[in-house]
């Protein structure tokens, strides 16, 4: 367990770029043949990567950012048609036969994929898989390759590499597996490392560790980096130049500060405006980009962004703008009117007038509607044998208390496995609690029979995370939205009528009620889910990661909708999320969970300004800011290691095994208290409570 508290440590470039081009992509295009006609995934992408340089490629899903890099690696499926040129150290790699391209892969360009859980072969040890990469390009003995594997594991910061090297992938956590993949990538000192969403599948505190490992890999190998991501914060802190992709093309590129501070393409501006920021003004309304990205088989004739662009004129719809230089050196943009964007902010272009005014935050603390006392959920662990004896317990939620008030948004945040979703579901009795009390407006819910519970379900509704899985694909949208009404005894005709109103309420066309879910985009589906939850006119809405599965530009629209609905209908939200930026934007109060316990809770503004629990401090400090200057100057509190198993939580304070304060800021005697005595959640003034024996406010923003 070590802590790095460094100013600008993560942001600074480990490698100094020079002028030699290591990767030169020119006019790269990729088409896929499909039953719906050709899909134009990448259309004429060009970029040059110099030795040691870090290039960020940013875009939403379907923008072609991953496909373009896979094309360079020759890893696309057979139905892909690739044209253009990609030169690695001056040598053309597109169209090389397998025997030639396999000498380039791993040796000159290495790649890191998104999902660490599936990237490693489950039947070989991690040591074998790293050694294999070494042996593919180096004439060394097995023993030497194994030694090198050990060395690489050490370099990417895996503790006890001698033991880990013999383990199989399933015995390692996601963060560790991603570091193994990074070790494989750096095995042969490549000239370029392509990282495709390397941290998207990971929790924020682990993301920080993996990005640190990636930096270590670059320091060690001197490799140039292509960092593909949708996360503007990650890009801001880790690259020199950034290229923004939209509809299969690069629409803007330039030095990262330039692009973030004075974007010259309306899409980039829109992206920045739709992002809730940890360092932004909470009262400012987000400015979403209207509409959805273009379908790959039906690209608009002119600029691909024109249908969503408030600036679009006739010329934009007819003529596709070329990527051309702007007034700043090295900064290019594909917009006919990029000159007009000088000094324009997202709200000026995408706002609807209300944005500038800001939100009125008039939160009279209402009466509590939903109260939870000492809620516990244990899942039994059963033996594998015939008898399936109970051999242990996973303590998913161990004694939490919450209070949700009228017209208030309470956010429950934490990393995966902390018990936040379990808690949310227990509140609605979708999962039965092990013990504790749930009280809704003075009425205890926890021991109601299912029959007595049913009328109360009117009042408490839920919106799920995955807008694709939570809608029955065989029901029309009107049926889906009207179903709760029919279940609660409404006539079919009346339910259908109400469904129309509800669709209108969430910003969808009521005429589309006869369509099926697959005809809608992710954001629209989530709106359908919200309309369904609102059908019974509930008082409390449990939102379980409602925007996590959505692209940034779409997410902002859903967040705004939720805010409007709360205002209009007087709802109370329990907002479950792992995304602190979103939480900071939408919530009035926040409760931070770690391993089944609440470690800190308080009013949003105060909790983010001066968090007192070391875990909250680490969380806040791990969120990347979409601002290249501030992101690189920030002070960071890094935690190491992974969340311990909830089947066997540490004694005393559950966070102590990862706590930077425990490791470095306490005396031996003070530590004993952390080990022996579980800290109580104590009030630190004005509703701010934390569960730390040695809590201390730290200003991080």
């Amino acid at each position, binding site marked *: 367990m070590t802590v790095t508290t460094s100013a600008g440590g993560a942001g600074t470039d480990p490698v100094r770029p020079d002028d030699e081009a290591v990767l030169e992509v020119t006019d790269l295009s990729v088409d896929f043949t499909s039953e719906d006609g050709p899909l134009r995934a990448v259309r004429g992408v060009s970029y040059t990567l110099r030795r040691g340089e870090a290039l960020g490629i940013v875009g939403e899903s379907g923008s072609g950012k991953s496909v373009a890099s896979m094309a360079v690696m020759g*890893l696309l499926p057979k139905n892909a048609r690739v044209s253009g040129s990609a030169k690695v150290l001056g040598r053309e790699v597109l169209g090389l036969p397998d025997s030639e391209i396999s000498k380039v892969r791993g040796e000159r360009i*290495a790649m890191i994929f998104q999902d660490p859980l599936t990237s490693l072969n489950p039947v070989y040890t991690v040591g074998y898989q790293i050694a294999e990469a070494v042996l593919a390009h180096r004439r060394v003995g097995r023993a030497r390759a194994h030694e090198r594997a050990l060395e690489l594991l050490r370099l990417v910061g895996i503790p006890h590499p001698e033991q880990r090297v013999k383990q199989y992938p399933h015995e390692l956590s996601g963060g560790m597996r991603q570091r193994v993949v990074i070790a494989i990538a750096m095995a042969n000192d490549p000239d370029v490392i392509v990282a495709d969403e390397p941290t998207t599948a990971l929790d924020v505190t682990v993301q920080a560790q993996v990005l640190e490992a990636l930096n270590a890999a670059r320091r060690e190998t001197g490799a140039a980096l292509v960092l593909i991501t949708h996360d503007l914060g990650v890009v801001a802190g880790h690259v020199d130049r950034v290229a923004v992709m939209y509809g299969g093309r690069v629409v803007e590129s330039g030095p990262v500060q330039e692009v973030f501070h004075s974007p010259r393409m309306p899409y980039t501006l829109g992206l920045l405006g739709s992002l809730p920021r940890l360092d932004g003004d909470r009262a400012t309304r987000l400015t979403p980009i209207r509409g959805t990205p273009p379908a790959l088989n039906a690209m608009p004739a002119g600029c691909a962004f024109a249908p969503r662009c408030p600036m679009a004129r006739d010329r934009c719809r007819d003529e596709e703008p070329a990527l051309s230089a702007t007034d700043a050196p090295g900064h290019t943009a594909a917009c006919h009117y990029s000159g007009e964007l000088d000094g324009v902010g997202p709200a000026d272009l995408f706002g609807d007038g209300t944005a500038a005014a800001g939100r009125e935050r008039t939160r009279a603390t209402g009466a509590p509607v939903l109260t939870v006392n000492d809620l516990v959920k244990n899942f039994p662990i059963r033996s594998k044998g015939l008898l399936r004896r109970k051999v242990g317990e996973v303590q998913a939620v161990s004694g939490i208390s919450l209070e949700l008030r009228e017209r208030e948004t309470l956010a429950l945040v934490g990393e995966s496995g902390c018990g936040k979703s379990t808690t949310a579901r227990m509140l609605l009795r979708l999962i039965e609690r092990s013990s504790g009390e749930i009280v809704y407006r003075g009425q205890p819910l926890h021991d109601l029979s299912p029959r007595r519970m049913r009328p109360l379900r009117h009042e408490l509704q839920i919106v799920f995370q995955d807008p694709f899985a939570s809608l029955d694909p065989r029901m029309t949208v009107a049926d889906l939205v009207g179903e709760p009404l029919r279940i609660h005894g409404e006539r079919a005709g009346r339910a259908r009528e109400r469904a129309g109103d509800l669709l209108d309420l969430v910003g969808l066309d009521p005429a589309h009620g006869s369509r099926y879910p697959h005809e809608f985009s992710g954001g629209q589906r989530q709106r359908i889910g919200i309309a369904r939850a609102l059908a019974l006119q509930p008082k409390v809405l449990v939102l379980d990661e409602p925007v996590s599965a959505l692209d940034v530009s779409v997410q902002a629209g859903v967040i705004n909708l939720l805010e409007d609905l709360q205002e209009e209908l007087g709802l109370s939200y329990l907002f479950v999320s792992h995304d602190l930026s979103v939480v900071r934007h939408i919530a009035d109060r926040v409760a931070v969970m770690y391993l089944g316990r609440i470690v800190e809770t308080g009013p949003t503004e105060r909790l983010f300004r001066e968090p007192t629990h070391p875990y909250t401090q680490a969380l806040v400090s791990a969120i990347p800011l979409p601002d290249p200057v501030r992101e690189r100057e920030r002070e960071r509190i890094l935690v190491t290691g992974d969340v311990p198993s909830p089947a066997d939580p540490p004694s005393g304070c559950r966070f102590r095994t990862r706590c930077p304060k425990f490791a470095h800021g306490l005396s031996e005697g003070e530590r004993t208290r952390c080990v022996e005595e579980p800290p109580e959640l104590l009030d630190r003034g004005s509703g701010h409570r934390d569960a730390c024996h040695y809590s201390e406010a730290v200003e991080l923003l």
Partner: protein
Amino acid sequence: MLVYTVRRLLGAVPVLVLASILTFVLIDVSGDPLADLRLQQPPPDPSVIQLQEERLYLDRSMAERYWLWVTGIGGNGDIGLLQGEFGPSTQSTTYDIGANIAERLGVTLRLVGAAMVLAFGLAVLTGVVSAMRQYSKVDYTLTFIGFLALAMPTFWFAGIMQSAGVGFNELVGTQVFATIGDGTYQAQGQDLWGRITNAFAYMTLPTIVLMLTTFASWSRYQRTSMLEVLNSDYVRLARAKGLPERVVIRRHALRTALIPLTTVTAVGMAAIIDGTVLTERVFQWRGLGEFFIAAVDSNDSYALMAWLMLSGTTVIVANLIADLLYGVLDPRIRYE
């Protein structure tokens, strides 16, 4: 692993007991072994019938008979599963069910073993080729052959193969393929080369018949699992490491894609042994299938029970083998 194996074996005991009860009761209530004798015209002497009833223990209650069948306590020494005796036969007083079934099992296993090894090899080969050339002409051809083999009734296909064998023999003017019998008798007293040619002559045709239907379904299975693995992230990472394509296929794709087929094969073993009845009948092999048919024909309850118990035991053992194999092949599965 050892602990797990022992526990699984112990766990198999109650299953076997249940299987024995079911087997016994189902067969015992389904018919009277002496029905033919009783209906004989002119009617046999009651003392003859009584003698037969005593010999076959039909003078006792069903519960007593079950106990006797399992333990052999209080019998004439020719009954009791736990003593390795399967009971008296209706077919003749000298017919030893145990010795017979063991001999027949040997014959059947010879056929099934060869067919399964061939089917497995061919299924892996065609499955992998099909998956790697998905939607190509090769894939479509193999898919067509696979479905054709699945669709053909065994007895019909066996008949066709038999006629084809006869036709071929006539064409070349010498007997290359034997189309009747299992060749056990013919092999006696031959030297090694003689035995090999003899085995080839007798085994080729029925092995092909038995292999084809099994191969077809396994091949589809292998194609699916190979396709899944070929599209997996770890195969992509193996390519990204710079491994040559054939190493990627052999080491990363095939190795993992074989796991499901291996267990399917183990589990399917029992079904295949039982399923040889038709093939054996057509080629007149004196295997388990023929044993089963003879037992049914002569109302031989103890022989039928023996056959059923053998099937049940094979299923249990095959499942155990499948589970253990899975543990060996897939490190994610660890038995405590």
